[in-house]
């Protein structure tokens, strides 16, 4: 083999190796944007950001942003969602501070309403304990026990 050919092979190999890396990384970025659970879990829970204007986006997922189920994504339908420790809930939280039937979310006119269903420690939006059916804005932190939820697109 000539020196030139070997040099070409050498650079070609390094280029190909980096090709693999770069293609993987770009596919990985697209993977993060895909609507799967891994993708939505990747978006970190940012506090203090303004919730998007209501009516503009329709939340499609309920995302757990804190607690032992962190990263869990529940795709929302039109059916109500119940949260609690008992196994007959839609979302079963493994959380000592949650009640067996803790809270209920339901949809009306494209918006999600949350209500407490007689929990011990209460259901909180931001720092406020809710007392009746309350509108849950996308991006607002909903706290049940030590678990925090958020509506996301």
């Amino acid at each position: 083999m000539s020196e030139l050919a070997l040099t070409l092979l050498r650079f070609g190999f390094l280029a190909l190796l980096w090709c693999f890396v770069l293609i993987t990384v770009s596919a990985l970025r697209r993977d993060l944007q895909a609507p799967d659970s891994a993708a939505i879990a990747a978006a970190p829970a940012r506090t203090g950001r303004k919730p998007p204007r209501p009516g503009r986006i329709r939340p499609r997922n309920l995302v757990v942003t804190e607690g032992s189920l962190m990263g869990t994504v529940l795709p929302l339908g039109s059916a109500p969602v119940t949260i609690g420790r008992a196994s007959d809930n839609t979302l079963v939280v493994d959380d000592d501070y949650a009640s067996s039937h803790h809270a209920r979310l339901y949809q009306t006119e494209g918006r999600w309403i949350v209500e407490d269903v007689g929990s011990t420690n209460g259901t909180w939006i931001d720092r406020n304990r809710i007392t009746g059916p309350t509108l849950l804005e996308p991006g607002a932190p909903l706290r049940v026990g030590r678990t925090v939820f958020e509506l996301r697109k």
Partner: protein
Amino acid sequence: MSAPTAAPQPTTETDDTNVHVPNRRNVELGLLILALIIGMFAYANVDLAVLGELPANFLAVGAIFTLLLGGAHVAVRYLAPYADPFLLPAAALLNMLGLAMIRRLDLAEQQRAERAEIKAPSPDVIPQVTWTALALVLFVVILFVVHDHRRLQKYTYTCMVLGVLLLLSPLIPGLGTTVNGANLWIRLGPLSFQPSELAKILLTIFFAGYLVITRDSLALVRRKFLGLGIPRGRDLGPILVAWGVSMAVLVFQRDLGTALMFFGLFVVLLYVATQRRSWLVIGGGLFVIGAVLGYFAFGHVRLRVQVWLDTWTYANDQGYQIAQSLFGLANGGLLGTGLGQGYPQFVPFAKTDFITAALGEELGVTGFMAILTIYGIMIERGLRTAIAVRDPFGKLLAVGFATVIGLQLFVVIGGVTRLIPLTGLTTPFLSYGGSALVANWMMIAFLMRISDRARSPLPDGTVDASGRLS
């Protein structure tokens, strides 16, 4: 309760959702083909540079690997269709790079034997290819047998017993053999096996299963002390046992790397399970105690540290290996010497512990960084799987496997580049050694099984389907 929409209680029917969740299998196929091309490129490059001609069996070898990797890919399509698409190509590429480097070092040994006019040692690449085939078969078998990773939790204590037995099995007289001062092999007839490699999988399953059950008492019951929550005395038991077993491995098997890896794995999992920083502090403290004890009690540990701190004093005797490795890396420089054109054979044990030094020399910093990035992607995918999966056992298991790969990599590459004292561990997927290769492929299989669970569109038992997407 005033509910404006009196919808029925949780719907359990699983409506066929219209949203298409991409399973990304074609991405995996594309990357796998690229990995295959790079691997065969490396093989051709090695032979062209060393022997000046394409190997005669080039097409046959290409066909074998196409068959093996293609088979694995097809199996994933059927058995774990939503599994992470990046793990298989990354592992395959690293495996093939390792094989190319082993082939390259075989050729160097062959040439040296020709010059010295002695019989050439039998090439190591052929058994390693056989091990690769076996590992890929096992990869498929695991995907086939383990439908749901949560079933593994039932075998928590079985895994502990088997894992500890395997870990200590080289100490059984007649079964264990001592290789290069470390007593970590067992020999069964013609087969020798490194049981600690299999033990790391079993113990990861055990740690995950155990911590899922006990994490509440480990996390919640504590006293405040110096701003840290300090656990009760009896909750310290498990970490002390893990530390004791690691120290036993260090004392009786003289295997620094394995001891470090198991203890590190346990501390990381404890931290992840409880989310308490105090465990990291306690673990770090125990590690320092162990390290100081090891330094003063054992000559081989002391020697490693001295060679690390003062390599050039020992460059001709105990530090020869690490000194040669550093010379090799310097020779490689930014762009490397090119495959087959460096002198990686000057480093003793270049095929096992020092394969990264050989790759660093021939591919340079540029190639070395690419390899590290591929490892980084692999570990990131493992941790991402842990975030996405919905059950706590799966989370801990995925973190555990990603941690094992990461820790092992840090210990090996840190040692080779003289960042930390040298400890003998194999580089995942690259090094020569069948047991390590098989064990690493098994871990990838488990990770893919967990990620399939995490990414498949129909949620499993923890979270029920909530009906049609609006």
